């Protein structure tokens, strides 16, 4: 029983020391669908995405419904969350005109927060943001918004100083312009998506590895006897990581919203 079981699909625990998915494609592709409605395939991930959407709508609807003189504790929590996104992120980063982008930032923050917290929700235990399609789509949305805003606010003056910066010596301008162009238009959406995706995948893998191996050792106490106590430190370590992942889930939702606001801000005021 010296094996660690990471993935069950296509894995023979009798032969492999560590079983892992054949390749990374599994993280990007659709798995078998549970049921199908017309052209739409519903996998577990899709159902969880819809669940996250309904949770976000429900939280905001029931949290902010009606104006009461003395709001409930739940209402105060939701209000402080909304106020945090509006005052600290939208207005604090973008400036007074950030109030225009605040509905988008709020929905981004709430959706990613709920999706990340699925990682540590019992019986779900799967962060929907650890499938590349979702963070990639969210960051492409951010990309479309900040490029559109940049061209709308500044016209060609948005891309001009970017690829031909006047403040550097003329011999360096093509090089710096190329670097700026690549980092603004290609690396920004990529790193925005990969940051969320990689953090969630890493946390999910660590939790799965530690808790499942602890459970495998402890549950096979009848076969291997006293040696199964090696599962206890695995389990304790896994629970420690569990607490750490709560912080990571909240922090990553904050960071993707903050960076989206910063990118929009750099399009609204390109010279800063």
């Amino acid at each position, binding site marked *: 029983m010296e094996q660690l079981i990471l993935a069950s699909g296509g894995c023979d625990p009798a032969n492999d020391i560590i079983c892992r998915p054949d390749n*990374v494609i599994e993280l990007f592709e659709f798995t078998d669908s549970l049921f199908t409605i017309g052209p739409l395939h519903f996998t577990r991930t899709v159902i969880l995405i819809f669940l996250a959407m309904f949770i976000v709508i429900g939280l905001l609807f029931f949290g902010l419904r009606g104006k009461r003189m003395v709001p409930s504790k739940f209402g105060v929590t939701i209000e402080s969350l909304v106020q945090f996104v509006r005052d600290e992120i939208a207005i604090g980063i973008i400036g007074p005109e950030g109030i225009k982008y605040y509905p988008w930032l709020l929905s981004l923050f709430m959706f990613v927060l709920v999706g990340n917290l699925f990682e540590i929700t019992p019986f779900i235990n799967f962060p929907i943001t650890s499938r590349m399609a979702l963070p990639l789509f969210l960051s492409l949305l951010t990309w479309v918004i900040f490029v559109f805003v940049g061209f709308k606010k500044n016209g060609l003056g948005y891309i001009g100083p970017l690829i031909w910066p006047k403040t550097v010596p003329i011999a360096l301008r093509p090089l710096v312009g190329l670097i700026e162009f690549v980092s603004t238009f290609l690396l920004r959406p990529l790193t925005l998506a990969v*940051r969320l*995706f990689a953090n969630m995948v890493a946390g999910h893998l660590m939790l799965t590895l530690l808790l499942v191996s602890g459970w495998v050792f402890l549950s096979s106490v009848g076969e291997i006897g006293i040696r199964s106590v090696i599962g206890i430190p695995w389990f304790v370590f896994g629970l420690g990581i569990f607490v750490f992942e709560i912080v990571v889930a909240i922090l990553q939702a904050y*960071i993707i919203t*903050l960076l989206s606001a910063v990118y929009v801000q750099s399009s609204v005021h390109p010279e800063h």
Partner: protein
Amino acid sequence: MEEIKSAIALVGYGLGAIGPGIGIGIVVGNAISAMARQPEAAGMVRTTMFLGIAFTEALALIGFVLFFIA
């Protein structure tokens, strides 16, 4: 061959994580000293610190993904 490829990818990710590790250390250390000197500016410093961390760790994250792809 497959094992060697995975092992090299793992070493590559380890090497790629050195720079961002040092960078995040510098960012957080300077943010802590700034917050200790001016506690009233702690909120602004914290926001900027998260931004700096997010930009610095991008290379490590790209390395993480390359490790999977390789």
